[in-house]
Every structure is written in C-alpha cells, then in structure tokens.
C-alpha cells in the first residue's frame, strides 16, 4: 500500500530525514520509534503533506500513486489520515460540523452521495462508542477547551468516522494517563482491519503493550536503524535510545 524509497527531507534547509525506506502492506500496523529529533514526526507530516517540509530526494508511492504530488486535501480524499500530536483548536467551528464537511468532501471525491444531517448524526453516535466519547464534545468547537485526553480521543473518533486506508498516528499516546491510553488504544484496535494500514509514531514502548504492531522500526538521525517485531521495542525500553544512537554513530 505504501512504499517509501530513499526519502530525504529538509526543514528550512536542514536535513532531518536522511534516506528512509519503508514498505507497508494493507492490514499491517507499523510502529516507528525514536528519540526526540530523530525525524519520526517529520515523516508523519510529510506523508500528510504539511507545508514547510522539503523532500530533497526519494519517492513515496501510495496505492500506486505518487503521494508527494497530491495536495493535503487530495491525500485525505485518497484515504490518508493523520492523527495529530497537537490537535489545533478552531474557535466557533463545531467539532461535528467540521467532521461532516470533511467526510462529505471525501464522499464527493468518490462519487458517493453526501450524508445528510440525520444520517451523519447516527453515524457519529455509533462511532463515538469506539473511544467512549462524551456526547458534550459533539456540540463544542473543534478541540476548544478539550483536555489532552479528549483531544486524542477526538482524533481517533475522527479516524473512525473518516475510515482511512492509511492512518498515521503521531504520538497519540503522549500526555495520556493510563486509563485514557487504554481507551485510545482500544479504539485503534477496533479500527484495525485487513484493508487498513496504520503507522504508530511513538516515543514510548508502553503504547505497544496495548496496540501490538506487526513491525517496529527504530529511527535515529533521520534513518531507520533497526527493524524488528515487538521484542525490539522491549529491548529498546531496556537499553534506552542511547543504545541505538551509539550504534548508529558507530556505523
């Protein structure tokens, strides 16, 4: 589904990603771990098409298409979803209203009929259960006054409604207490299926106790230093990132 080849990315002229190769198939969950500044959030943003990131070399092919040639909204239409690390507040814009606008834009793109308010609301009620969303978050402005945990839940809730093919979860575990983490992870697990690929970008191993990945990649200095299964994450937990970084330095 997703094929990243020799990806190099600079931010303001400074190289951040220095040659990433990654193959992800439908149905797989890949965890991308790494210390701060290793380039993992940059990778997430580049996949979603945020401006300010310059791809200096390499290709990203998604469902047979050149992903980098698409605008961010076109990527969303094609099924790319980013759960933000810091979901932004948009005062005065109703949370559900924005989501409906997004869903209907995606449906239009696929030649499907737009959902009317009634159908949309019943869809929303059903999807809210996935992350145990409080009804009151429906009537509030986008992320405004949400607690950290509520914001992260809202991201996964949006994912549930938009049903992406490729979901990139950028540090969805950060800032969550253990109860919230369990709810969010439970939501993500319910959204795993054979047609959907998920990339978990995370700093900590603990998320992977709840969402068991098919593969774990460890990023440092803008490159994948090691790839393994869940045990790699546990090993990392034991030795710390210094272990990978010193190896990377030596290589």
């Amino acid at each position, binding site marked *: 589904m997703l094929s990243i080849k020799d990806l190099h990315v600079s931010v303001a002229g400074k190289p951040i990603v220095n040659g990433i190769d990654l193959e992800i198939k439908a149905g797989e969950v890949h965890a991308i771990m790494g210390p701060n500044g290793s380039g993992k959030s940059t990778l997430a943003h580049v996949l979603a*098409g945020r401006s*300010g990131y310059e791809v200096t070399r390499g290709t990203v092919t998604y469902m047979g298409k050149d992903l980098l040639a698409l605008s961010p909204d076109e990527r969303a239409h094609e099924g790319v979803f980013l759960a933000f690390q810091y*979901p932004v507040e948009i*005062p005065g814009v109703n949370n559900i*209203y924005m989501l409906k*606008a997004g869903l209907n834009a995606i449906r239009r*793109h696929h030649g499907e009929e737009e959902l009317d308010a009634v159908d949309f609301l019943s869809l929303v009620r059903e999807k809210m259960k996935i992350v145990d969303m409080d009804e009151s978050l429906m009537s509030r*402005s986008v992320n405004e006054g949400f607690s950290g945990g509520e914001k992260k839940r809202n991201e996964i809730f949006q994912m549930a409604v938009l049903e992406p093919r490729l979901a990139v979860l950028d540090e969805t575990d950060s800032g969550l207490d253990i109860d919230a983490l369990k709810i969010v992870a439970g939501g993500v697990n319910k959204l795993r299926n054979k047609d959907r690929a998920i990339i978990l970008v995370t700093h900590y191993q603990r998320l992977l106790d709840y969402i068991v990945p098919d593969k774990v990649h460890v990023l440092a200095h803008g490159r994948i230093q090691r790839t393994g299964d869940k045990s790699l994450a546990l090993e990392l937990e034991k030795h710390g990132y210094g272990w990978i970084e010193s190896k990377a330095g030596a290589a």
Partner: protein
Amino acid sequence: MASTKYDIKTAVDQRYKHGFVTDIEADTIQPGLSEDIVRLISAKKSEPAFMLDWRLRAFRHWTTMKEPVWAHVRVAPINYQDIIYYSAPKSQDDRPKSLDEVDPKLLETYEKLGIPLHERAALAGVAVDAVFDSVSVATTFKDKLAEAGVIFCPFSDAVRDHPDLIQQYLGTVVPYTDNYYAALNSAVFSDGSFVFIPKGVRCPMELSTYFRINARNTGQFERTLIIAEEASNVSYLEGCTAPMRDENQLHAAVVELIALDNAKIKYSTVQNWYPGDEHGRGGIYNFVTKRGDCRGVSSKISWTQVETGSAITWKYPSCVLRGDNSVGEFYSVALTNNYQQADTGTKMIHIGKNTRSTIISKGISAGHGQNSYRGLVKVLKGADGARNYTQCDSLLIGDKCGAHTFPYMEVTNPTAIVEHEASTSKISEDQLFYCLQRGISREDAVSLIVNGFCKAVFKELPMEFAVEAGRLMSVSLEGAVG
C-alpha cells in the same frame, strides 16, 4: 460551507452576484445640489410645508459644514454637484395600489435578488419594504400588520399619512446638525421605511427593508424611523445591493430608533453594496448614521450588522441609554477584501442608572483591505451602576491588509464598570492544515474558520439571515487565499 462540488469558475463568476442593472424607465432629475433641488424633491413627493422647511434648514446647515476627515479611510474627493439626488422608476408616477400593479421588471429584480415580493411567495413571516433607488416600490403584508396596529410603510407615505408622528420624532435622535452626511441626508432624503409599533404590541412578523441602487450616478439617501411604544417589541432587518460599476456611488442613510419604556428593538443589517473590483475600482461609499435612543426605562436596542460590501464603510450604529436600566447591544462583523476600507464601530452613551451595554466586534481583513474598529463608551455622571463589556477581535488573512482598533472611553461616574478585550489573530497554517487533512478544500477551510470567528455575531441574526451571512462571507472571501 459549499455543499455541492466546489467549482472555482462558478465561484469567481459569482463573486458579486447582485451586480446586474435593471433596464427600467426612470424619472431622473438633473445632477447637482441646491435649494431648488431640495424644493424639487419635496415637490415630487407632494410633501407638507413642515417637511420642506426642515429639509431647507438641513440644507442651509450642510452648506456650512465640512466633510469629516478623522476616519481611517482614504476617500477620493466627492463632487456633490455631480450626483443625481432623485431617481425613481417611471411607473411610480401613478403609483401601484397593490402588489399586483407593481412593474413586473421590478418584481423580477427583487426575485433575482432572492427577495420575492409576491406575498404568497414571500419569505415566510417577513414583511418587506423594497426601496429602489430613491423610492419605495412595494411593501408586503401591510394589511396583516395593520390588524396588529403596526404601521410599516414607505417614509413618504408616513409623511403624508402620519405627519404628527413624523413631526414628533423625526430628527430627535439624529438631528440634521449631527454630522455632514446626516445633514446631507436630511436635505435630500427621498424615501425609506417607517415603522410604528403601538403600546404593548409584539410585532407579529419580522420587518425588513431591501435597498437597491440601480440608476447610474445617483446617490441613495434613505431614512428609516422606527418607533417602539411602551412594552412593544420589533425585529427589523435590512439588506442592500447595487450593480457593478466603475465609478463610486454615494449612499448616505440615516436610521433613527426610538424605544419607549420596556420596548425592545432589534435591528439587523446585511450590507452587501457593490464593493468595487479587485483593483479597487468602483463600489459604494457607505456613509451612514444610525442611532437608537433608549428613551424609556428598561428599554433595549440591539444592533447586529454584517458588513461585507461597499468600497468604503463609515458607520457607527449607536445607543443612547437614557432610560434607567436600559440596554444597548452592538454585534458587528465587518469584512474588507481587495481594496475595501471600513471604519466602523459604535457609541454607547450611558445616561440612565444601571444601564448596560455590550459590544462584540469582529473585523476580518483580507487582500489589501483596511479594517478599523472605532468605538466610544461614554458614562455620564448620573449613570450609577453603568456596565459595559467590549470585545474586539480582528482576523487577518494575508500580509497586505490592516486591522486597527480605536477604542475611546469617557467615564465620569466612579461606580461604572467598563471592560475591554481585544485580540488580533491570523488564520494559522495549523488550523488550515488540520482542515485540509480532514479532506476540506483550502477555500472551504478559510470560510469555515472565518465563520467560526464570526459565530458570536451570526447567532444574533434571524435564522435565515444567519445562513445568508455565512454564505456571503464565503463569496466575499473568494480569492483571498492563494
């Protein structure tokens, strides 16, 4: 939010969709302004002597005045002798007795503008007075309103049919000496709407006036007077459009509101005069004086305005809070795109005890637009317990526009509480990217965010106008983001 597939071509073509001209035979007088012209206008309307006399006093006073220059706007010099001060559709000579006799071309014009004047097709529950250039061409639901004792008619009819009310109230809120444009209006005003809500009556429907400039080189000078007697209640709204033309046209209106004891007046405006093109050519000069007098105790006047049109807007709907416990409100959204300029705000004059006022102003600047909030909160000595809350927010789109805030406060009573909050923000890339990532196009995202910014004001508008206002914002912002 556009609910159909977004089509740039259509959107661009629709940028100002009210820009057409109606080809209709008009009775138009020669350009220029003099005592003779004032007499001519008065004669055309067969006015009683008191009216002509008032106009002439206003005219003589106007000749002693100078244009105000304190507003933060650049105005090309206006030659008042080039302007035509009266133009009316010919068919008005033998005025239609009922809606069925109104010139079909006029009905079609308003149909096109989305204001059907046939009562059976009319906006549900809204009575409309349609003002075309200098005169009122139709008023709907007159009979139904009369049953409730409500008078809603063209200003000229009121001068003829209710001279006592006119003499009692005209110019008592905005005297002709008030300012340059108010004096000019008082001398040459041609028509407008008159509303009288008798004691204890809650007006059974929304009242609205729809102003349309059509003729070339004419100015529009209408006057609106609304009187709400004791414990009455009325909601009034006005809309405005004009054809697209390369030259500027002057619109100098006066609105006076009077609320007696326990009366409530809600006045909403959706102003969409032609704003000029993307190079700043043409557009309406909208120089308007609006003031409400909370004359009675516990009376309330609430202004809501959505200003998206006009090349220049110079307008300060204000409240004089004379009665004890009276309440004044001002909710405003002003949008300037391309080369539009707006200097708008309000004055809240606290005279009575325990008077309260609220000011919520949302300014949006895009393109090369210049947007100023100018507001005065004045608390007089006797206004014990007066309270004001002011919130002024500015939103900038792009880096060539400007937002300015000029808040003035004059407080001479120590028990008054006056609060002012202000903010200036830009639409952040983070907000845009968040919307884009959810599949929303850039244009739709901007309009979504701007509408969110305006929400506190839009919610004050009557339902169908709130929807229209949201749509208008999207259209007015076309091309504002690259």
